[in-house]
């Protein structure tokens, strides 16, 4: 293999030793620093993170000093990332604003108020469910309405495409559902109505204004809705980010999700002062994003989808894997670690990855393509 030294090292080398420095010296240094082919880098990455994680904290810590926002950190967060959980325990967004909004506190807080989701539930002070009238009556909080700047009409408008009839009587909003025949159904309807979005972004329950060192305001939210936030004009789309990996992969794509995994894992580790080389985190992130979707590392992700039946069976729920293997007539190629260990054969990694055939007195492997016989 031809060795190509990255440009930045050549430049640095020439800077130090002059323009006509002997590049073969650099090549020596470069080659010496490369990984050894056959190295089990996956296991090294797993161990580097696993060993470090024994020193992580278990408790969630508040992110920014006095701020009320709690973020999951430490071991629980790490587990959450590697599991590729859909509902993470503390989703949040860091929303950065365009110049004209980030400088003024007032404008920034207007943006923040625009983001916070306000539901019908937030402006109701009480409600009654009546099965006889097949209706639910909500008593709306006038002051709240005023504070948020809604009129009764705004509220009514939300019912236009629902199959119920809504009417207003003073402070009361009554919703009648003719099809309701049980209290259960009405309660379900009530729960649905309470969740109706009046303004703001669905899922964002709070937005807190923060100021960075340069005096620019930015917004931290509890709850995420990246797709909607990115549609807003006031937002600096290039920096705004959510900490929900699955959401990011859906909105921004798999590469963005990969970067987020790396950033989150690295951040969690650095939070407690642990140093793990980025390469290890890259590798895990790349493995998780291998097929274009985010796969966790557990039973329902990478480990559960291994090629080798025996490797899968040795991880968790062996019976299920064995029965399905039998059912679907699977074949387990012995080119992986787990199955070769089970059969007392040399694993195809590290020094075991080297294939060497010795002919003893013409005996031994005399096939045309020695070594290839390992693949069926």
């Amino acid at each position, binding site marked *: 293999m031809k060795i190509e030294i990255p440009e930045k090292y050549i430049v640095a080398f020439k800077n130090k030793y002059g323009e006509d420095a002997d590049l073969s010296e650099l090549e020596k240094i470069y080659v010496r620093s490369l990984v050894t082919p056959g190295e089990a880098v996956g296991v090294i990455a797993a161990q580097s993170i696993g060993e470090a994680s024994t020193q992580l904290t278990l408790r969630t810590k508040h992110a920014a000093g006095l701020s009320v926002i709690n973020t999951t950190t430490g071991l629980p967060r790490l587990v959450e990332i590697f599991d590729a959980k859909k509902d993470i325990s503390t989703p949040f967004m860091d929303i950065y604003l365009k110049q004209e909004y980030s400088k003024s506190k007032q404008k920034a807080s207007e943006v923040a108020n625009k983001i916070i989701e306000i539901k019908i539930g937030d402006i109701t002070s009480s409600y009654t469910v009546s099965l006889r009238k097949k209706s639910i009556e909500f008593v709306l909080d006038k002051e709240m309405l005023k504070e948020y700047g809604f009129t009764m009409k705004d509220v009514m408008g939300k019912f236009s495409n629902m199959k119920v009839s809504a009417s207003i009587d003073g402070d009361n909003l009554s919703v009648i559902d003719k099809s309701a025949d049980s209290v259960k159904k009405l309660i379900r309807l009530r729960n649905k109505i309470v969740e109706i979005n009046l303004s703001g972004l669905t899922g964002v329950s709070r937005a807190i204004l923060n100021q960075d060192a340069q005096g620019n305001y930015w917004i931290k939210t509890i709850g995420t809705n990246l797709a909607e936030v990115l549609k807003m004009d006031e937002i600096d789309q290039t920096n705004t980010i959510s900490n929900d990996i699955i959401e990011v992969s859906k909105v921004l794509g798999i590469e963005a999700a990969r970067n987020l995994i790396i950033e989150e894992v690295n951040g969690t580790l650095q939070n407690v002062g642990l140093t793990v080389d980025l390469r290890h985190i*890259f590798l895990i992130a790349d493995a998780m994003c291998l097929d274009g979707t985010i796969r966790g590392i557990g039973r329902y992700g990478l480990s559960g989808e291994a090629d080798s039946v025996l490797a899968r069976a040795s991880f968790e729920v062996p019976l299920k894997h064995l029965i399905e293997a039998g059912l679907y007539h699977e074949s387990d190629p012995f080119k992986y670690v787990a199955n070769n260990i089970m059969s007392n054969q040399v694993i195809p990694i590290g020094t075991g990855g080297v294939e060497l055939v010795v002919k003893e007195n013409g005996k031994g492997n005399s096939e045309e393509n020695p070594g290839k016989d390992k693949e069926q």
Partner: protein
Amino acid sequence: MKLDSNFVFSKIAALEFGIMSPKMIQKMSAVSITSSELYDIDGFPVDGGLSDLRMGVTDPGLTCKTCGNTIRDCPGHFGHLELARPVFNLKTVPYVYNLVNSTCNSCGRILISDEHLKKLSEDIISADINEGNKKKIKLIKALIKHAKNVTICPFCRTKQKKVKLEKPYTFIDGDQKLTPIDILNRLEKIKDSDLQFFGLDPDYSRPEWLVISILAVPPITIRPSITLENGQRSEDDLTHKLTDIVRTNQRLAENIRSGAPEIIIDELWDLLQYHITTFISNGSAQVPVARHKSNKKLKTLEDRIKGKEGRFRGSALGKRVNYSARSVISPDSFLRFDEVGVPIKIAKEVTYPEYVTDLNIDRLKVLVKNFNSYPGANYVITPDNIKRKITETTVNNILDEIKTGYIVERHIKDGDIILFNRQPSLHRLSIMGHRVKVLPYKTLGINPASTLPYNADFDGDEMNIHVLQNEEALAEADMIINIKNNIVSPRHGLPLIGAAQDYVSGCALLTSKDTEFEKESAEFLLSNIGMVTDLKKKKYSGREIFSMILPEDLNFESQSNTYKITKDDDSIVRIKNGKLISGVIDAATIGRESGSLLQFLFVRYGSEVTAKFIDQANKLGLMSLFSMGMSVNIRDFDIPKAAYTEIEKVVNDGEKSVAELLKDYDDIAEAKILSIANRIRIKVRNIIDAYIDKKNNNVESMITTGAKGSITNLIPTIGLVGQQMLRDVRISNGFSDRLTSHFKKKDNGLIARGFIVSNYRDGLNPVEYFLHAASSREGLMDNVIRTPISGYMQRRLSSALQDLKVTEDLSVRLGNSIVQFKYGEDGLDVSASDKGDLKL
């Protein structure tokens, strides 16, 4: 020498899985089980019973009727039991359910129209070829889901009724219960050509094989009976269950033959189903657990396979070894860091098999002769592979016949390479190659410099050694996992082996500005590291002495820990052409997990130079301490009265502002109080830092050199212990509105909620002590809970990434897919480069 035995002529290339058909079970069966009796009156196995000799032997002296071998060589043979009525296999019920519901109940065809099927079959084939099994199974699952909801068979136009499954294994069609026979009939109707849509291959897995009509009876060798001391036989759990099955089956068959009423037959059939279910698995939710008379759970087939101690994790992947030893470890600074002190007792027990050649025959003969003392040998293996113990009676014979081609299992000796390990083996550095140093102690000795990668200390820790048994393993232990090659960690590129504690203090003392030695003491120092020289000058500075262990062409510059704290320019480490010109050598240059010089040396000069340097530096440090002395006095912890008045003032001010906040106490005030408590701590820290004597103070010097301790340790020792917390908040008042009866009710002040103003040196008062213990306990609990969580995470990570490897083009691959085109995006090895960078 038999070379043949060392060659691998054939390997397992792949393993195919399938379902066994009743026919196949019959074909491979050595015996048809007909009797539930195990032994006759004379204690001999009954023919056709569950201990039939045709299924193998477990008693010494008997021979197997099938293969003719005795206990050690007979692998065991399956038998079979023809069931009077078929029963379900609990583990295949979900699949049977899917099959029944997605095929027509009258014609047996799949409930998807023909034209659709054509396309699907192409999809499935292409998925199988292009994207592998996973994709195929996903497709099939979607297909089954679709077919389940079809109401009219597209082929024979019969109306379909959905079969319901009542867990665990009752199928209901409308209001009628479907027996295994009904299900069997339905499954048999499914055409071979339709099977591909369910992912089945008619040659390997016909649907009707999922229902048990003939039971494979496992060989006795996997369920041996044991003879107790009183001569009574005790059977294995599986045998117990099998007798139940056979007995129930017999009764069922008899009742069917005699034309007994339906109810009785059904009842027995259900019983048979239950027994076979609990033979396979004893843990499923709706099935009552089968138990021993003593109420112990019966071990089932599933239990044998599943879990940590199961067949996979416990037996197939968990190998057991000979030639290993374990003992308590003790520190021994006079060992090299790559050595391990092995007690003679161990050295005589664990051996290395050495081939006899012309070159070593004389040496080995001496060892054989010396067999019962150290160094000696325990066994001799002849070329025909016969192992013979060397004893008083055999020694002369062996000495006579021993020649080239024999193998002598000799005691391990100094310089042999062995593996050294401490559990938990969290990373690869938990097992490394060490050189043996046989010593007359009872514990394994280890240099304190190499404890960090093992995470070992000497409060009773035990470690294991493994003696390697062939040259290939020996070579790998020496050249790959040798501790010398693993000085730098692959995790972050920092050295894990280096100076710690006294070594650091000693080196810092040696290399500090004014240290000078007379010629004689300098010579003594150097003699300890094996440099016997005749020095010329009258006086030598410590730095001159240290320079002698540096490589001659070394050029290096780095900040020292001392510099970071004192900002004294003289403390910056400058090495020019192997001479230490200025700088204090301390933790920043040679310490573990920080030593920049060690990392620099390892990458540029290689492991041998670095290893030698570490040992010599440590020894120099240690011997310097010996000659110069260093101790800690309680006065080293003194800070002047003025400091304590200041601390008192800080606390008082804090209390005042807390009192202010308490007037309007709420959540926000609580958060502010917390931050006040924190600020007090920081202020105290600064006071200590300002007042503590920086010169002639060995505590302070240990902190500045990074040998041990930090200012954070001084705060609670001589300042104040500070706020005690539980679950990230101040210890809460609880139901009685106060922590202890020493406080007023509803007092939320600093002291009343766990702020400790005393320090360790002066002592805590009882209340403070109690609260301190409460918050320490939380830490312990946290640790206990955390360990299994992180352990499981690591298991999952390893299992997911174990097959990733770097190929010749530096790409990282998992099977046939590429994970990274270049490892770590630049192909650099963390431990072979400057933390993943090239510093030229």
